[in-house]
């Protein structure tokens, strides 16, 4: 199984543990990631100001994967939704495809034919490998570990472009993977509320408040060892802002935020250092102790 790996902006600069653990898990499962040389941003940031610019940036990546003859995989939910939506629109709207290809040609890029399939790595693991297969490969089950899964928005919404593969209100696919590695999946009220990452650049106050509200609900639930997620923006919201939120409210949060690939790698018995566990600001030491016990 070969896939073209699209990294985007945030993961290779601010989410090294996600990239490292995803590469290790893929390798373990016999999935070959082929790096997309020279690929940059998916276009998401400029969708706010210029839809055509965003779609054209996505089309550059889609055309590159097409040229490689591979389906495209992304680890970032924002890249996932942006590329999936662009692929969907360019497939449905031939006028748009023509207009975007003129922009690509002018930029010295190959035109896009319209055939690339986009995967979020989590969906690929769930659909193409499957929880049963993953379960069968577990060496260190996460028995007794309670995890809240934050599937987030751009993994599965808007559902019209994602063939309704999972429920936007009560998503199951990420939980299925958490259960496959032996952990207990815990639900909280309004489980799929947004992390607030989309407005970090426009109102840091509102953005961090939204993240803090959900962190509080997870902590108040009691007994949850970690939050599992699969998007670098959600990770910034929930992990990088924890110290500030603790300082502002005077209340301790101390909730480890782990990428699903780190958890799967851990359960496969892979080296935690190589998986990037050392990168965390909120150290998951209690969880690691539980798994090693």
């Amino acid at each position: 199984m070969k896939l073209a790996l699209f990294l985007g902006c945030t993961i290779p600069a601010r989410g090294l543990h996600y990239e490292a653990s995803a590469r290790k898990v893929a390798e373990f499962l016999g999935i070959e990631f082929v790096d997309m040389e020279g690929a940059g941003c998916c276009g998401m940031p400029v969708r706010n100001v210029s839809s055509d610019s965003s779609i054209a940036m996505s089309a550059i990546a889609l055309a590159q994967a097409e040229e490689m003859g591979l389906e495209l995989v992304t680890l970032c939910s924002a890249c996932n939704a942006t590329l999936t939506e662009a692929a969907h629109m360019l497939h449905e709207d031939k006028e748009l495809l023509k207009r975007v290809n003129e922009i690509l040609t002018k930029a010295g890029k190959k035109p896009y034919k319209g055939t690339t399939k986009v995967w979020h790595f989590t969906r690929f693991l769930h659909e193409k490998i499957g929880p049963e297969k993953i379960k069968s490969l577990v060496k260190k089950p996460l028995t007794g570990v309670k995890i809240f899964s934050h599937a987030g928005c751009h993994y599965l919404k808007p559902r019209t472009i994602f063939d309704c593969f999972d429920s936007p209100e009560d998503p199951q696919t990420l939980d299925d993977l958490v259960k496959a590695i032996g952990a207990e999946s815990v639900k909280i009220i309004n489980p799929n509320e947004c992390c607030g990452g989309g407005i970090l650049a426009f109102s840091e106050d509102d953005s961090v408040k939204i993240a803090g509200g959900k962190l509080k609900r997870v902590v108040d639930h009691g007994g949850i060892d970690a939050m599992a997620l699969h998007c670098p923006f959600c990770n910034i919201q929930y992990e990088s802002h924890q110290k500030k939120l603790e300082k502002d409210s005077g209340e301790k949060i101390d909730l480890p935020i782990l990428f699903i690939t780190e958890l799967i790698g851990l359960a496969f018995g892979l080296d935690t250092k190589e998986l990037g566990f050392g990168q965390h600001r909120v150290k998951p030491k209690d969880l690691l102790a539980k798994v090693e016990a």
Partner: protein
Amino acid sequence: MTDSAGASAVTDSRLKPVFKNEVSELPGGERVKSCFQCGTCTASCPVRAVDDSYNPRKIIRMVLLGMRKEVLEKEPIWLCTYCYTCQERCPQEVSITDIIFSLKNLASKEGFMHPSMVPQVEILSEFGRLYEMTDFDNKKRAKLGLPPLGNKPEAVESVFDSTGLSKEAEERKGSSK
């Protein structure tokens, strides 16, 4: 008439009823006229839950009434975090999130791009991604066994030149709106 904050009410003569037609032609706008103002969007909105100034139901109603200038220049449309919760829950299948994207695009074209977008456009033009990959970044990557990455800017800059985004950002930078 003025409200307590001294802002003028928008009277009938200042409304632009054709604005709803303009929005209905934009990406996501197809069903905007079907809104029956139930308020599911605002009740579902995670931003509204922490900030009263943001109200998607109000934005849609202002579009339908024709309050073009107020929507594009004054309403905090930039606070939409595009989580799609409103769009997924809308009983009338109005693509609210997509409409707000289109309103932000339109506001940008007319000189009202959010100022924090300007540096993002500039960084993307220069480096092809939101973060410049420095030697320091590549050293950190090497420590985790990750391949080095370079910056490939030229295609992005050309895309922004073609769509007019480079010019819009440049002009926004020089304006004091």
